[in-house]
């Protein structure tokens, strides 16, 4: 079954992945980190991506920017359609690796922020220099103006005394400040898509909340789309408009955030949902209640990748045939034989 390409018909869609596969060739075999995923996301929304460690969230994010190539990965198959600021739709998957066209997207139309604010800046340049670099790279403006812009951006992310901090080196800032600076850098060219890969996991709880709040505010202000990758279903519940649930390189369910909490369909989503700690502030057990552990991406089980751990596993079906994404309602799709009538 071929999926319809929405991005060509619906101007509200900004990014659409079609059957994306990303692999790493290693000495131990081929790692299928992203194993055929499709989804789309609209303007002005926050798309949450959840899944256990190692399910391919980070690799997917890097595939969208094609920064997987220098890591030894390869976008082996599929399309990454992206609507540029000028309305033109490009397939990022087909652009030449590290080419000019790709680079003109990075940082100016699609930005990314990372988990580790400690090491995501180079320690030998000031924060200001690193922000100015991305500005002057994409906008031909003199460096004095770029510096003013950098200071302005630092102010926008609520860094006190931005005109002083602009000359600080990364190690002179706290973790929270650094992550704010990271956001300032990512947004300094007004991208349309911001991919945030666990932006708050390395920070302590109070700072986490501040950063997330800031991101939501900025998302509205800049009218951009955020793809928020996280382990934490709590974060998703607060921020996201839609949720994509990943398991071992595949998408098992995609739904509006309310549906995921009130009406999860896929057994994996159900298990995830049950594992959220009920009492606020109790020790988060996160995903621990799902029996068994994630198989290796080198060795994806046949059929439904989740079947060895599934409570509703159907012999002869789930371990043989790969379930297709079924549309249940307008925005709710699920890949599970419990709902699949396709064949």
């Amino acid at each position: 079954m071929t999926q319809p390409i929405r991005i060509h018909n619906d101007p509200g869609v900004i990014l659409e992945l079609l059957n994306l596969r990303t692999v790493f060739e290693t000495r131990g075999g081929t790692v299928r980190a992203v194993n055929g995923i499709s989804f789309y996301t609209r303007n002005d929304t926050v798309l949450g991506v959840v899944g256990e460690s190692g399910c391919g969230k980070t690799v997917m994010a890097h595939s969208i920017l094609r920064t997987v190539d220098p890591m030894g990965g390869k976008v082996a198959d599929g399309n990454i359609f992206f609507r540029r600021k000028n309305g033109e739709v490009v397939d990022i998957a087909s652009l030449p690796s590290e080419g000019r066209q790709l680079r003109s997207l990075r940082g100016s139309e699609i930005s990314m922020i990372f988990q580790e604010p400690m090491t995501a800046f180079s320690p030998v340049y000031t924060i200001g220099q690193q922000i100015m670099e991305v500005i002057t790279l994409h906008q031909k403006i003199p460096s004095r103006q770029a510096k003013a812009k950098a200071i302005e951006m630092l102010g926008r992310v609520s860094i006190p005394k931005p005109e002083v901090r602009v000359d600080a080196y990364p190690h002179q800032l706290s973790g929270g400040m650094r992550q704010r600076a990271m956001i300032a850098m990512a947004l300094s060219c007004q991208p349309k898509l911001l991919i945030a890969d666990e932006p708050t996991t390395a920070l302590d709880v109070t700072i986490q909340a501040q950063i997330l709040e800031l991101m939501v505010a900025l998302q509205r202000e800049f009218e951009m789309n955020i793809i928020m990758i996280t382990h934490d279903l709590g974060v998703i519940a607060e921020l996201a408009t839609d949720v994509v649930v990943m398991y071992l390189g595949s998408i098992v369910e995609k739904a509006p955030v309310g549906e995921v909490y009130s009406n999860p369909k896929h057994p994996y989503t159900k298990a995830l949902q049950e594992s959220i700690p009920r009492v606020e502030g109790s020790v988060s057990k996160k995903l621990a209640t799902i029996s068994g552990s994630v198989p290796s991406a080198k060795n994806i089980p046949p059929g439904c990748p989740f079947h060895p751990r599934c409570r509703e596993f159907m012999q002869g079906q789930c371990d043989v045939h790969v379930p297709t994404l079924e549309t249940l309602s307008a925005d709710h799709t699920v890949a599970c034989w419990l709902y699949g009538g396709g064949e």
Partner: protein
Amino acid sequence: MAQNTQGVEATKDPKQLRYETASQWQLMWWKFLDHKLAVISTAVVILLLLIAAFAEFVAPQDPYIHRSQFVNAPPQVIRFWDENGFSLRPFVHDYERERDMRTLRTIYTFDTDSRIYLRFFVEGTEYELFSLIPSSVRLFGTESGEPVFLFGADRLGRDLFSRVIYGTRISMTIGFIGVVLSFVLGITIGGLAGYYGGIIDTIVQRIIELLMSIPTIPLWMGLAAAVPRDWSNVQVYFAITIILSLIGWTNLARVVRSQFLSLREEDFVMAAQLMGASKFRVVFLHMLPSFISYVIAAVTLAIPTMILTETALSFLGLGLRPPTISWGVLLQEAQNIRSVALTPWLMIPGLFVVIAVLSLNFVGDGLRDAADPYTQ
């Protein structure tokens, strides 16, 4: 991912754990075998050690015998064929001599009509293997008993091949013995620093830094020059070995120290201490085995430095002295451009230095890679 596997490990039963530690060695062994150059080099090193052990047997001639009719004779090439056809048995051509009337030097050419056949296990002059077993069988020689000069002869008509073989013994052992001494120094000092930490550690580190910040060759030269001129060969040999190890221990000590430091933090040392094991026991039973692989690698990498330094010192006339034969002593003959131009084969001992040092470096590199859990 890492957290996951750790979590799983903790719940494993002891039997399985033992199996996994055993396979750790296995894994290192496989990784070492993967390093092809290191494997080949190991064979070369073993060969050199065998030559060192059986020098009397391998050398076709007594390395001290002067033969005036072969002064500065060029190397004879082992052949299986010449203008007169093919031969299954290897042979060399005999020399023809002419005298340059101006310089009064003998000019050697080869008589291509002559054949001196070579044979394995021939009777030669008497020797005592390991200074114990009298014998006269040599690995190879000529059928006629005529001397053969595979690497040519020096200015006294001594067989360079035999001399290089004997030199292998001295040069290799000086490297190995020097490293053993360095190792004792390094592991004691580095171990103390790493185990106790604090002020001892600081002092040791400063001493190491100091020794590493001065150019070693002049220091070595100075120490070597201070060795009294009237000492016997054996005394000089040991003096030089000690001098080499006195300066060579620093790097080993650093490796040992850093390993100790990282191990000190590990739980099992703590656990052993809590359970009342004495500090000595902790060091030798719990800490030593776990970094032994690193130390072996560091030791292997230290040997070539020793060999190079001995060669340099002896070359300069500050290390071992004739009649002791080492590669460096042999290279002394090639000290000036005139003798090198006339008798370039005198540089052959240098080739052995390069081969030995290169192989030891590769072996050490392979061991280090194998010991490093982070390499693939």
